[in-house]
């Protein structure tokens, strides 16, 4: 891209940035315009990149439409099929049919047919999630919750340290870490246990649990703030640096 386009680009970006920020004063036409632009551009972006990166190589190349249209030399499954050879890629035909069914949702009369591809999507995710969530979020977590109450290894490790090296983290990890992990996880689980009234021991466990959850939320609160702020900072760097060049 030529110099002009670079400069033009930076100005465009800057003006759009300001346009969006104007929302802070109040909802206004300029913001609405930028928003509409954004919606259109991102939809178009997905449209294009999905064609080139998915439909074209996976569907049209594999089936051989690209060759029929003369855009490529190598055979697709269809060409081979016509020559009576079986090619595993022939199954993509079904995928193509399902994809068309999906698009048919645009036609109210036959829209219901889009339930078939939807069923494929829902079915596959359901089948996979059942396993993966159980493995990664249940078993693995169980494996790392069933740990000794105190970590003897780490405690031994502390002895080797010089006075300066003994930090709060290390000390905590050795003596309280496991305990906190175990108590926090189990009581938190008790809080989400709905089949029994939270009375007596169960009740107090649940109470501890909720406070663990609150600390957890506090942590993500802090991190979310961190995240949002950094986004703004970056925009400021763009405005003051790349655009105005005053830093």
């Amino acid at each position, binding site marked *: 891209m030529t110099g002009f386009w670079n400069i033009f680009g930076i100005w465009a970006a800057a003006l759009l940035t300001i346009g969006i920020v104007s929302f802070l004063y109040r909802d206004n036409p300029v913001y609405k315009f930028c928003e509409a632009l954004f919606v259109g551009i991102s939809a178009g*972006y997905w449209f294009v990149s999905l064609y080139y990166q998915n439909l074209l190589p*996976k569907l049209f*190349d594999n089936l051989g439409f690209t060759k029929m249209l003369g855009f490529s030399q190598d055979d697709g499954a269809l060409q081979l099929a016509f020559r009576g050879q079986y090619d595993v890629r022939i199954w993509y035909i079904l995928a193509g049919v399902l994809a068309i069914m999906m698009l048919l949702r645009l036609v109210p009369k036959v829209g219901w047919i889009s339930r078939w591809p939807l069923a494929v999507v829902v079915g596959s995710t359901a089948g996979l999630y059942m396993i*993966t*969530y159980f493995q990664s*979020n249940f078993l693995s977590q169980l494996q790392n919750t069933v740990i000794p109450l105190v970590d003897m290894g780490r405690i031994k490790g502390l002895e080797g340290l010089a006075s300066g090296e003994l930090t709060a983290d290390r000390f905590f990890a050795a003596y309280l870490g496991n305990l906190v992990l175990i108590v926090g996880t189990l009581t938190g689980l008790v809080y989400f246990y709905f089949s029994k009234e939270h009375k007596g021991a169960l009740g107090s466990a649940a109470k501890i649990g909720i406070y663990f959850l609150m600390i957890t939320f506090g942590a993500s609160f802090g991190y979310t703030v*961190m995240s949002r702020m950094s986004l*703004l900072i970056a925009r400021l*760097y763009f405005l003051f640096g790349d655009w105005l060049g005053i*830093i």
Partner: protein
Amino acid sequence: MQRLFQILLAIDRRIIFLVIFLALSVPIFLHLKIDIDVTREVQIFYDAIEALPTGSRVLVSCDYDPGSEPELQPMAETGFRQMIKDHIKFAIMGLWPQGPMQANKALAKINEVREGFIVENGDTLAFGRDLIVVGPDTIRYGRDFINLGFQAGNELVIQRMGSSVAAAFPNDARYGRPIETYPIMNGLNKLSDFDFIYNLSAGYPGTVEWVQFAVDRFHVPCGAGNTAVQAPQVYPYLDTGQLTGLMGGMKGGAEYEKLTGFKAKATMAMVSQTAAHIFVVLFIVIGNLAYFMTRGKGQRKGLS
């Protein structure tokens, strides 16, 4: 006193907008330098990459869009720098369509030679496109790195890569050729042929999916850079060792830059970041003070 607090409570939010704007802008011009300390989780990630033998192959999955560029882009750049320095080959992909473009952006950023080309046994190699030059090292597209591009299907894509990478990504994103034609891909058939996965994630699909499929099913170690919003939710995976290192938000990026010694954006922004945090804390404290002063803790008419 009461009056003051009432006034405080009544301020228009736009004034607060203005305050925070200044709070973040001013530090930018001060050019302060601050030192940050490196947290364990970032250290683990850095060490994991360093420990990879030369010539190992890393899968870099960029699962984010410009919305979280400020947090993840620095990590991407630093990651590429470190891998190039250690002569580690990498394949770029994305479960978000914008990911591969962000990766291109990062490579363009760290590349030092932008003009010219060389001819190597027949084919012309353009700098900045086929050749990326970083310090003493030059990496070549197709041999040292490749951009597989984006693929629709979220975790199903990972699942598919488990049995065949070429099936999930028929063509590369740069030239649209079948990926088997590139030397970097030989002996690289399944996901498990990768030595490490570097995942930059801003949500779904992202680190959670990589852990559940790539790590727990196909046993490829995975380190991640996350937006700060998401980071706390994947910490448990770090504790279980399902994640090999984690960088959270701009701070994580800055720590990583400190370790590798490539000071850049994230480090610069830490001053404003600090200011931001201080102000948010102040806001909450003042707000609560004013609130309870004017109401009195007891007769808050709310529930609870």
